[in-house]
C-alpha cells in the first residue's frame, strides 16, 4: 500500500504536472506531423530530460509516447498519410471514411478505441510485469545472455525485409558497444587515445542520430510537394448505438492482438495494427467492407496498435529488453538517470512502476478529452510549412544532444550517426538492431563471459531457460525465412 501511495504521491508534484502537459502537447504534435515518429520524438526529447528527476523525465517521455498514438491518427484519416508507422493500418479505412464525409466519426471513434486499447494494455502491465520480473530475477549469466540474444533476434526479425541485413546491423551495434573500457577487466578497447571514448560511445547521441537525424535527412532526400489537403468537411462526430455495437468485436480482437504483439520484444504498433486489421477482417461478417471505409476495420487497427503500449512497457521494465523502438530509446534515458530497467527494478524502485502506470493512464484519459474537443483546430496545423519543422527538428537534435554532456564531441557523434543512419536506411539496414546491440552489448558480453568462465559452453544448453530462449531466438530468425519461402512457392504455384 505504501508503494502505491508513494508512486501516486510522486505524480502530485506540480513540476511533474508541467512535464506531463509538455509531453502531451509534444506527443500530439509529433503524431500529427507525418514523418516525425514517436521514437524520433522521444529520442529528441531525451536530450531535454536528462537533467530532470526520473519521474519528471518519465512524465515527459511517456506522455509523448501516448500522445503520439492519438495525434498520428489525424493525418492518417484526413490526408491518407500515417503520422507515425503505428497508424499505417488506420489509413486503410480511416481515409475512405473521411472521403465518404465521415471524418469526424472516424476521428472520434479512433480516439475512443485508442484510449480503450491503452487502458486494456495497462491492466496487462499492472498484473503481469511483477511476476515476469520475479521470474527473471532467478536468471543467471547464461539466461541473461540468452535473453539478450532472444531480444536481438526478435528485433532483427521484425525490423526489416532482410534478416541477414538485420543480423549485420545487430552485430554492428554489439561492436559499437565494445568501444571503451572492458566491462570485467577495465582494459581500454578501440579508444585510439581519444579520452572521450574511454566511457564508450554516447548512446543517446547515437540514438538521436539514427532515429531522429537520419529520418530527417531521408525526408530531405525524398521530399516532393504534394497537393492533397486535409478535408474541410468532417461530418458528424459521435457514433450511434448500433455503431458502438459494431465496434465491440473488432475492439476485442484488436486488444488481444495488440497485447500479444506488445509483449514480444521490439514489435510495436505498426505490426500490431496490420495484424489486428487483418484478423478482424477474417472474423467479420462484412469482410468485403474492409478497406472501403469500415468502422470495424478502423476500430481493429487502432485498438491493436494502441494496445501494444502496456505489453511493451511490461517487457521493457520487467526484462530490460525494449518492447519497441520507443522503449529502446527510453532505456537509454533511464540508464542515464541511474535506473537500470530489468527484474531488479521492481525490488529497488517499486514505487516507480506505480508512477509509470499512473502517468500512462492519465495521459490516455487526458488525450481522449483533448481529442474530443480540439480536433477541428489542430487539423489546421497540418498545413505548417516544412521549413519551420525541419529547421526546428535539426536544431533541437543538436542542442538536445549537446545538453547530455555539454561537449560538442557528442554532437559530432550524433551528426555522424545521422549520416550513417540515412545510408543504412536507404541500403535496407534497420537502425533498431544497432541501437539494441549498443544498449545491450555490455550485458551480453559480461554475462556470456561469466557463463563460459564459470560453467563452460555447456551452460548455454544445459540450463532449460537459457536453452529455451536460444531456441526461440533461432525460431524468430528462421520463421520469417520459412514464411517467405512458402509465400514464394504459393506465388509460383498460382502462376
Amino acid at each position, binding site marked *: 500500500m505504501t508503494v502505491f501511495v508513494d508512486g501516486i504521491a510522486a505524480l502530485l508534484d506540480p513540476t511533474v504536472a508541467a512535464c506531463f502537459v509538455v509531453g502531451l502537447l509534444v506527443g500530439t504534435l509529433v503524431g500529427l506531423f507525418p514523418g516525425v515518429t514517436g521514437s524520433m520524438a522521444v529520442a529528441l526529447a531525451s536530450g531535454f530530460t536528462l537533467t530532470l528527476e526520473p519521474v519528471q523525465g518519465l512524465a515527459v517521455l511517456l506522455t509523448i509516447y501516448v500522445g503520439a498514438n492519438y495525434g498520428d491518427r489525424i493525418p492518417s484519416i484526413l490526408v491518407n498519410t500515417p503520422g507515425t508507422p503505428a497508424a499505417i493500418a488506420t*489509413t486503410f479505412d480511416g481515409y475512405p471514411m473521411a472521403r465518404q464525409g465521415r471524418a469526424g466519426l472516424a476521428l472520434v471513434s479512433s480516439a475512443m478505441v485508442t484510449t480503450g486499447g491503452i487502458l486494456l494494455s495497462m491492466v496487462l502491465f499492472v498484473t503481469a510485469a511483477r511476476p515476469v520480473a520475479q521470474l527473471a530475477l532467478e536468471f543467471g549469466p547464461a539466461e541473461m545472455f540468452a535473453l539478450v540474444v532472444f531480444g536481438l533476434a526478435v528485433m532483427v526479425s521484425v525490423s526489416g525485409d532482410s534478416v541477414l541485413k538485420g543480423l549485420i546491423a545487430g552485430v554492428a551495434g554489439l561492436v559499437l558497444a565494445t568501444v571503451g573500457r572492458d566491462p570485467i577487466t577495465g582494459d581500454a578497447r578501440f579508444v585510439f587515445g581519444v579520452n572521450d571514448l574511454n566511457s564508450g560511445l554516447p548512446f543517446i547521441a547515437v540514438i538521436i542520430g539514427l532515429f531522429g537525424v537520419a529520418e530527417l535527412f531521408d525526408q530531405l532526400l525524398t521530399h516532393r510537394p504534394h497537393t492533397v489537403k486535409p478535408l474541410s468537411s468532417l461530418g458528424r462526430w459521435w457514433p450511434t448505438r448500433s455503431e458502438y455495437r459494431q465496434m465491440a468485436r473488432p475492439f476485442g480482437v484488436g486488444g488481444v492482438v495488440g497485447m500479444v504483439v506488445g509483449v514480444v520484444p521490439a514489435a510495436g504498433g505498426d505490426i500490431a495494427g496490420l495484424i489486428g486489421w487483418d484478423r478482424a477482417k477474417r472474423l467479420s461478417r462484412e469482410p468485403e467492407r474492409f478497406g472501403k471505409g469500415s468502422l470495424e476495420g478502423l476500430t481493429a487497427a487502432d485498438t491493436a496498435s494502441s494496445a501494444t503500449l502496456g505489453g511493451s512497457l511490461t517487457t521493457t521494465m520487467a526484462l530490460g529488453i525494449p518492447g519497441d523502438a520507443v522503449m529502446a530509446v527510453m532505456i537509454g534515458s533511464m540508464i542515464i538517470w541511474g535506473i537500470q530497467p530489468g527484474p531488479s527494478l521492481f525490488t529497488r524502485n517499486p514505487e516507480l512502476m506505480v508512477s509509470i502506470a499512473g502517468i500512462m493512464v492519465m495521459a490516455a484519459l487526458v488525450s481522449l478529452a483533448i481529442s474530443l474537443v480540439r480536433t477541428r483546430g489542430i487539423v489546421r496545423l497540418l498545413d505548417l510549412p516544412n521549413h519551420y519543422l525541419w529547421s526546428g527538428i535539426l536544431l533541437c537534435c543538436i542542442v538536445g544532444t549537446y545538453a547530455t554532456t555539454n561537449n560538442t564531441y557528442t554532437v559530432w557523434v550524433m551528426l555522424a550517426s545521422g549520416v550513417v543512419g540515412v545510408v543504412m536506411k536507404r541500403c535496407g539496414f534497420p537502425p533498431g538492431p544497432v541501437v539494441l546491440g549498443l544498449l545491450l552489448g555490455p550485458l551480453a558480453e559480461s554475462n556470456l563471459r561469466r557463463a563460459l568462465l564459470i560453467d563452460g559452453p555447456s551452460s548455454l544448453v544445459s540450463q532449460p531457460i537459457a536453452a529455451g530462449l536460444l531456441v526461440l531466438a533461432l525460431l524468430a530468425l528462421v520463421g520469417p525465412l520459412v514464411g517467405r519461402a512458402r509465400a514464394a512457392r504459393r506465388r509460383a504455384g498460382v502462376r
Partner: protein
Amino acid sequence: MTAPDDSGAPAAPGARPSKPMEVAVAAVALAGFAVVFLLARGIELRVETGGIDPRWWPQVLGATGAALSAVLLGRAVVGAPARREGVQEATRDGRVRTVLVVALAALYVVAWPLAGFVVATPVFLAAGAYLFGGRGWAALLAFPVGLTALLYLLFHSVLEVPL
C-alpha cells in the same frame, strides 16, 4: 494479408533496386568487420590471461560480422538485387539539400563555441529555413530569433545547461 489499394493516396515513387549498391554495401561491411577483427587482435591488455579475455568478444563479433557480410556479398553478386520496399526514390534537389544541410550543421557546431549560441543559432536557423524554401520576414527573422530565445530560456535558464 492484403492492404486496400483504392484509397487515392499520392503515391511517391519507390527506390529502384540496385545491384552495384548492394555489392558495394556488402563489400564495405565485410571490410569493416575484417578491420574490427584485426584491431581486436591488437588490443593491449594490462594482464595477459589468454582464453576468454577482453579481446575475445570483439574478435567473435568481427568474425561473425565478416562471415555474415561475406554471405551478403555472395548473394549480392550472384542473386537479383533486393527490392527496396519502404524506401522512396531520392530527388536531385533532395541530394543537394541534404549535403548542404550536413555542411550547414557542421559549420554551426564549429561556429557555436566561437561566436556563442545566441549569435550562431539564429543565423543557422535562418540559413536552414532559406535552404528548405522559407522566404519572408516570418521565416527568416521571426522564426530564428523566436526559437533561439525559446531554447536559450529553456536550456540556459530553466535546465541550467551552459550554452
